[in-house]
């Protein structure tokens, strides 16, 4: 093939990008190696400095990649595949940021960027833990940078996928356009950004969530560092505030996703138990449990083994979540084969490496270490080799079982090693101690995470065991079955635990205090019962549990801490948790779909099943929904969005407002965004579920004209309604018409089942000829011509020609939901985040003070 010299491409910027990716990879590799030797040679200063400065260089390179990719998107260099695939000229700059998280490469880049930020912050703050902790962070960076390398080895195996690939490289030579040297002049715009991402929440939610994911490396790195350097316990103090940061940011990211879903997705809620949501929730639950275990350990010296496991697990779960969401295993539940060696193969390799890391760190004895190295790396090489030449089902099956075996062996060995390193304490834990209650709470968080993880992993289980299980058909009922009781138990534990002191407590005092707060809670819950109209015993228990959490923790701040607000971070976070629970309970249990369709009579089998939750609103219709009279007033199109105006008027009060749920129609696909009216006590939420295709309706062909001879008062019956010839307009000529033509108009009244319309077709006589002016009533599907003729015997008669087609209907199908007291949920989240922040400040101060000693 001839080489084509392409014109108009800006290759410099892409080469800068490629260079920076390579630089980021090399510097992270070098930094990791240097920190590794620094750690193994008891904090060797020279290695440490080398590691540090490579990491700084790495952080600069990563920032450079970020800027370069942004420049490509901002400059509309559509010769680059990433810009073409994910952006377009019309995007405002802030949505160009969203392009980063639309594509895989961009989201890995984002993760790597946050990791670099975290790494630099850790270098500045952790002092003597720098070498081992940064060695682990650098290892993650090596892994992430390799995801962006885009090196192809032969035709089958590639390492990473570069965001700086050219469009013509990615599209191969299949497209004839790339045979033209000036192909770029033909590509005037990119494919654009998914409209769902063109939302301000999508500008801030993904970076927050990725920051949360990235922070999970912190407890992981500290725990590994502790095992590695045999300073088994000292790492907890510096790790604790950082882990709290992780909890806070990941939690904020998750709930932002929920708020985004609530504000701009049309499934009617903030949480759908979707696998992608679940995959981010599980590490968060484990992180929270981890924080509590760290606190137990810090104060009593027990639970060290679980502290290790719960510090290591979140990062593993984040890796697993990345695998779940990025490998396509979730989206494709049945016909996907195991041969995909795109990025998913690479991701599995990384999980394999990171999973063994804790075991490598804990094993000290030389011979054991050698054995582990030999065994592990030979299996690793076996996997890589057979992973590439995998044309044999039997070898793949053997390999699969081998890997499952390796996974189990590593797990068991690590736990056994932990038990050997930290012999179990002989003291009897007492129910009078705070740590036991916190421990129980952590176990319940684990159980909650376990249930979510189990069902989310069904596709993986199916692939591993060739099974055929599908998630429960009713996800909400299934999750509630366990998550509701667990939440109730957690709420009670949250309410009581702080009243106990570590080790042992004066039970009498605790009982008195708790009885007091419990009595107040019962009173408040009783009030809540009437306020929220909740009477089911199970929900009442839930309400009581949430109230108890709020009251107990508030009383703890005022009575026990005597208002020392600096110490109250934990209690405030707990109050937020209680508020969230109450908010979740009320907004879901009392959520009411008000757009219930009452007009349609359902057949025998459909009656009970039908949810009838969507209602047809013709333009101009007014329908009563709960306490509102609702009318659809028509649509307006602004840019790519069509806004549907829905007018709400309260019955018996002066409340009135207009909601404008909108939609973008692209390739026949409706992307609907809801609109919500917020009140302090409830939200009225509306979205369109379907709209008629207007262009299709108006392009329907008209039927043939039928002629009717009419006189005044006559009625013609058509398929679309009755047409009444009401009167003749003798002078139908518009006033501003200069022509000297004489015109007669027929005043027609059209009666359809829904509405009455008027029409006036016109008959005109010019100097020597005559013509007609049609009138069309689209909404009735009728077209009229009118003329007057004199028969040979001199009798003058009027005629109407009528043509029919299906009426054009302007309507929407919409759903309206009232969410009561959902603000308790959002408010609870804010309170919780404030609590976390206060706890972070306090724990950081503690750590600084302990270091100064």
């Amino acid at each position, binding site marked *: 093939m001839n080489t084509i010299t392409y014109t108009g491409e800006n290759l410099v910027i892409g080469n800068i990008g490629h260079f920076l990716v390579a630089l980021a990879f090399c510097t992270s590799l070098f930094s990791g190696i240097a920190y590794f030797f620094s750690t193994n040679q008891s904090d060797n200063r020279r290695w440490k400095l080398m590691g540090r400065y490579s990491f700084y260089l790495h952080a600069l390179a990563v920032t450079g990649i970020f800027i370069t990719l942004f420049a490509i998107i901002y400059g509309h260099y559509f010769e680059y595949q990433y810009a073409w695939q994910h952006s377009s000229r019309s995007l405002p700059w802030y949505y160009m940021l969203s392009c980063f*998280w*639309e594509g895989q490469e961009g*989201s890995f880049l984002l993760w790597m960027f946050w990791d670099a930020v975290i790494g630099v912050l850790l270098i500045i703050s952790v002092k003597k833990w720098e070498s081992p902790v940064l060695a682990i962070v650098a290892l993650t960076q090596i892994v992430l940078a390799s995801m962006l390398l885009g090196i192809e080895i032969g035709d089958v195996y590639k390492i990473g996928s570069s965001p700086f690939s050219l469009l013509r490289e990615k599209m191969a030579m299949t497209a004839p356009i790339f045979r033209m040297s000036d192909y770029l002049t033909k590509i005037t715009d990119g494919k654009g950004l*998914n409209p*769902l*991402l063109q939302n301000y929440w999508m500008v801030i939610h993904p970076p927050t969530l990725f920051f949360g994911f990235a922070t999970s490396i912190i407890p992981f790195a500290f725990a590994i560092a502790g095992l590695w350097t045999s300073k088994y316990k000292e790492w907890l103090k510096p790790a604790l505030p950082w882990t709290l940061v992780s909890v806070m940011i990941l939690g904020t990211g998750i709930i932002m996703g929920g708020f985004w879903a609530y504000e701009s997705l049309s*499934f009617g809620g903030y949480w*759908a138990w*979707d696998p*992608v*949501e679940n995959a981010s929730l599980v590490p968060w639950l484990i992180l929270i449990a981890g924080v509590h275990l760290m606190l137990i350990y810090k104060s009593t010296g027990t639970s060290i083994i679980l502290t290790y496991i719960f510090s290591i697990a979140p990062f593993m779960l984040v890796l697993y979540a990345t695998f779940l969401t*990025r490998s396509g295993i979730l*989206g*494709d*539940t049945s*016909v996907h084969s195991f041969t995909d060696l795109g990025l998913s193969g690479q991701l599995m390799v990384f999980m394999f490496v990171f999973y063994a890391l804790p075991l490598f760190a804990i094993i000290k004895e030389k011979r054991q270490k050698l054995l582990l190295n030999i065994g592990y790396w030979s299996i690793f090489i076996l996997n890589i080799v057979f992973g590439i030449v995998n044309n044999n089902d039997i070898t793949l099956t053997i390999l699969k079982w081998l890997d499952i075996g390796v996974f189990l062996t590593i797990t068991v060995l690590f736990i056994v090693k932990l038990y050997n390193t930290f012999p179990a304490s002989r003291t*009897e*834990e*007492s*129910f009078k101690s705070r740590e*036991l209650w916190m421990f*129980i709470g952590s*176990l319940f968080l*684990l*159980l909650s995470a*376990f*249930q979510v993880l*189990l*069902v989310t992993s*069904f596709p993986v289980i199916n692939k591993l065991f060739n099974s*055929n*299980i*599908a*998630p*429960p*058909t009713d996800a909400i009922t*299934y999750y509630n079955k*366990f998550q509701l009781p667990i939440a109730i138990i957690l709420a009670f534990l949250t309410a009581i635990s702080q009243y106990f002191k570590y080790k042992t407590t004066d039970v009498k005092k605790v009982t008195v205090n708790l009885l007091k707060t419990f009595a107040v809670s019962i009173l408040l819950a009783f009030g809540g019962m009437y306020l929220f109209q909740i009477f089911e015993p199970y929900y009442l228990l839930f309400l009581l549990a949430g109230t108890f959490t709020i009251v107990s923790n508030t009383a703890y701040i005022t009575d026990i801490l005597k208002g020392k607000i600096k110490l109250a971070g934990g209690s405030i976070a707990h109050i937020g948790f209680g508020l969230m629970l109450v908010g979740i309970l009320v907004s879901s249990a009392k959520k009411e779909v008000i757009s219930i*369709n009452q007009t*349609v009579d359902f057949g025998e*089998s*459909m009656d009970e*099943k*039908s*949810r*009838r*939750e*969507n209602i*047809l609103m013709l333009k101009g219709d007014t329908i009563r929904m709960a306490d509102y009279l609702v009318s659809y007033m028509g649509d307006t199109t602004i840019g790519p969005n069509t806004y549907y105006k829905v007018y709400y008027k309260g019955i018996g009060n002066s409340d009135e407002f207009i909601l404008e749920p909108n939609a973008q129609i692209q*390739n*026949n696909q*409706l*992307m*609907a965004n809801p609109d919500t009216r917020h009140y302090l006590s409830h939200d009225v939420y509306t979205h369109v*579920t*379907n709209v*008629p295709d207007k262009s299709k309706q108006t392009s329907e062909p008209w039927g043939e004209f039928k002629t009717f001879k009419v006189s005044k008062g006559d009625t013609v019956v058509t398929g679309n309604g009755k047409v009444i010839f009401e009167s003749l307009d003798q002078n139908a000529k518009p006033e501003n018409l200069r022509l000297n033509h004489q015109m007669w108009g027929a005043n027609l009244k059209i009666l359809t089942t829904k509405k009455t319309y008027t029409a006036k077709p016109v008959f005109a006589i010019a100097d020597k000829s005559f013509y007609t002016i049609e009138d069309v009533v689209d909404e009735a599907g009728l077209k009229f011509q009118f003329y007057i003729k004199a028969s040979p015997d001199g009798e003058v008669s009027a005629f109407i020609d009528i043509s029919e087609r299906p009426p054009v*209907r302007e*309507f929407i*199908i919409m759903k309206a939901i009232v969410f009561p007291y959902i603000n308790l949920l959002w408010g609870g989240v804010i309170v919780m985040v404030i609590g976390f922040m206060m706890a972070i400040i306090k724990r950081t101060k503690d750590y600084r003070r302990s270091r100064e000693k």
Partner: protein
Amino acid sequence: MKTINIIVLIAIAIAIAIFAGAYADSSTYSDFKTAREQAGHEFHIVGKLNKQKPMVYNPLLDANRFEFYLMDSLGFESKVIYSEPKPTDFDRSDKVVVIGKFEKQDGDFIANKILLKCPSKYEGEPTAK
């Protein structure tokens, strides 16, 4: 026995209950023939849309009724009735998962949920309706 051991045992018991619960509540990916034979039980059925046969959605008559024909992976076909508006990206989807059951052996498949597999651009984005 130490208190803590009892607590851990209880936690393990709950974990087993969760495991059993997940298994009991789980559905299976199946085909129309099996689903018809076990009328009344809910199944996940993966299939392709038969675009030759009519897709009926007449919102003026009933906004909450959508009918179409689906061919499952084994080649069995059935009419599917969904009591929600027609999902708006339905025409574009190449693969459809319907979740529901046959109420009678000779009846139509009543879907209470439809998952669409579209050529979605945002990988992380659920396509559940």
